[in-house]
């Protein structure tokens, strides 16, 4: 057992897989000598050397293009895009190439690629460096989408992502980097497409992802004080989506709230709301509530960023106000 931060869990997760599979390579900007701008890849260059752990020129398209090419020759690749906002810089590779090549070759090629990227707000980096863009990837057929909220999940889901034969976009949350947990020794391997019920409750199901998970948990404590028993589900992966866990929960609680950091329009919660409205309509006792960032670019100022992304207060107040 060891106490490990989310940040250190990233390098442990990558190292675990690089030890297991000597073919696995890792590339990105400032990932080797500098150990990553978020220090998530410290130590990997020392252990695995410059051929497997590679600093690249500032060329996001080439990073993903090279990953795609290498993957098609059978080399599994972890590629880092420093900030998730920069997925937009190489979106052709993400949306049109990596996501579609298996399909377009009639299943002949596999793209075992993990695109790791730092996502989300809390660091005051503003409109072009703080976005939550998991929904950009969720809407593209052919990609899997993972967003862990704990150090242990970082390792286990990293392993599952690396071992998956298809491309996975792996979102690491900047504001969770410093969070710590006690982690078992040895190999940790999880499964994609499995949500986790973190707290059982009977009155409402709260579905959350990444940074919104600890906030939803804190909100559930506060709701309990007001006599509302909330069940909290950490989705962990958006694709594949664990619809069973969500539907089973709503069947019992009769209410659903999603807590999303992405902006409102076409945020991932809209998909879940639509699913529940269709599959569990007759179980619902109340309208579905979506708690999201408004449909605005993220401000960088402390007060405004705090006011913009869903806070514990915001979650509690929204749910309570809908209760009446």
């Amino acid at each position, binding site marked *: 057992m060891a106490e490990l931060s989310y940040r250190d869990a990233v390098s442990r997760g990558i190292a675990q897989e690089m030890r297991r599979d000597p073919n696995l390579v890792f590339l990105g900007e400032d990932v080797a000598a*500098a150990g990553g701008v978020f220090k998530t890849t410290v130590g990997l260059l020392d252990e695995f050397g410059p051929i497997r752990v590679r600093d690249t020129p*500032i060329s996001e398209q*080439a990073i993903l293009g090279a990953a795609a090419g290498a993957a098609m020759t059978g080399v599994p690749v972890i590629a880092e895009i420093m900030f998730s906002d920069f997925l937009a810089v190489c979106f052709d590779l993400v949306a049109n190439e990596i996501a579609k090549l298996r399909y377009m070759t009639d299943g002949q090629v596999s793209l075992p690629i993990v695109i790791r990227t730092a996502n989300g707000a809390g660091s005051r980096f503003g409109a072009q460096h703080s976005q939550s863009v998991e929904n950009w990837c969720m809407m593209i057929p052919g990609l899997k989408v993972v967003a862990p909220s704990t150090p242990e999940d970082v390792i286990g889901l990293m392993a599952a992502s690396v071992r998956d034969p298809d491309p996975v976009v792996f979102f690491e949350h900047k504001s969770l980097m410093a969070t710590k947990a006690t982690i078992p020794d040895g190999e940790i391997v999880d499964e994609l497409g499995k949500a986790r019920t973190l707290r059982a409750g009977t009155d409402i199901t709260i579905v959350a992802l990444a940074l919104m998970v600890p906030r939803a948990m804190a909100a559930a404590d506060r709701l309990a004080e007001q006599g509302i028993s909330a069940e909290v589900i950490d989705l962990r992966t958006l694709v594949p989506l664990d619809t069973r866990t969500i539907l089973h929960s709503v069947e019992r609680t009769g209410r659903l709230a999603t807590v999303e950091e992405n902006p409102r329009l076409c945020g991932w919660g809209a998909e879940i709301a639509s699913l529940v409205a269709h599959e569990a309509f007759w179980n619902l006792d109340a309208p579905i509530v979506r708690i999201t960032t408004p449909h605005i670019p993220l401000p*960088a100022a402390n007060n405004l960023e705090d006011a*913009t992304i869903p806070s514990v207060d915001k979650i509690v107040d929204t749910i309570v106000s809908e209760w009446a």
Partner: protein
Amino acid sequence: MSPEPRQILAPDGTRHGESSLEIPAIRRLYQAMLSARVFDRKASAMQRQGRLATYSPFEGQEACQIGSAAALSPQDWVVGSYRDGGAMWLHGYTWRNLLLGRTGDERGGRTPDGVRVLPPSITVGGHMIHAVGLGWGERLQGSDGVALTLFGDGATSEGDFHEAMNFAAVFETPTVFFCQNNGWAISMPTERQTRSETIAHKAVAYGMEGVRVDGNDLLAVYEAATAAVAKARRGDGPTLIEAITFRVGPHTTADDPGRYRSEGIVAEWRERDPLERVRRYLVAQDAWDEAWQREIEEAESRAIEDIVADAEALPAFTPREIFDGMYAEPTAQLREQRAEAERG
């Protein structure tokens, strides 16, 4: 193209080439470099005090920034990166703009009327293409305005650079591409960024003139930029200037350069300081004295403190302003979300 960068002022301050600048003009530009350095150091200090978000210092690159922007006229544009505050300021973006930007206040991005400077680009590369469009737009409007874009060596690895260079050459836009090759892109040394012998060489592939200058030489930078701007204004198309310089500070206040480079190389470049070089030249011309230097430093320091006090006293930017900044008219849905945000 000669790979040897053009130089007019040697590091010891001796002049060995022609400059179109007279002593009073050199004094003015020296003063501007000094102001920029005072600002830059103050901004780093404020960041350490927690009063600014992450800051990217440009110390060591003042000759590049002041020398290039000094070649412009008011109808021209400056499009720079997060490290180009000096050039932006000389062209009319204010220190207040820059400071507000670093406190996360979007009012920092609103330039004084008539000032043609875009907010600093923090996504590496995209802004170079803006400079192509700005130059093209000026042409379409019948103006002789020129767009100067500043960027680093690392930015030349982005597809954006290649598309911008090619487009500018094909459209013959009045664009000046000014690359500050400062040795590093965060932890990546230039020689691992590109295998081109020089960055200026890349111009050849696009059918564009490429020029190399000593980026720590104010006079050489000024001459190269002036020639490129004049050419662009005449309608003779874009130029790529590669200025050889060095980032003596960290990449940003969040960076620890000790992880990837030695102190020795930094000390070497401090010896080639762009301000000291001009100062030595001015001393030899009897055009510098200590009292003048101190006066500038103190005046600039006070001015910047006033700006800081003023910026910190501004009423906070409100959520309402974020919503209102998005479209000319907020959509009905946004109006609802704005009302919700205002309720808290």
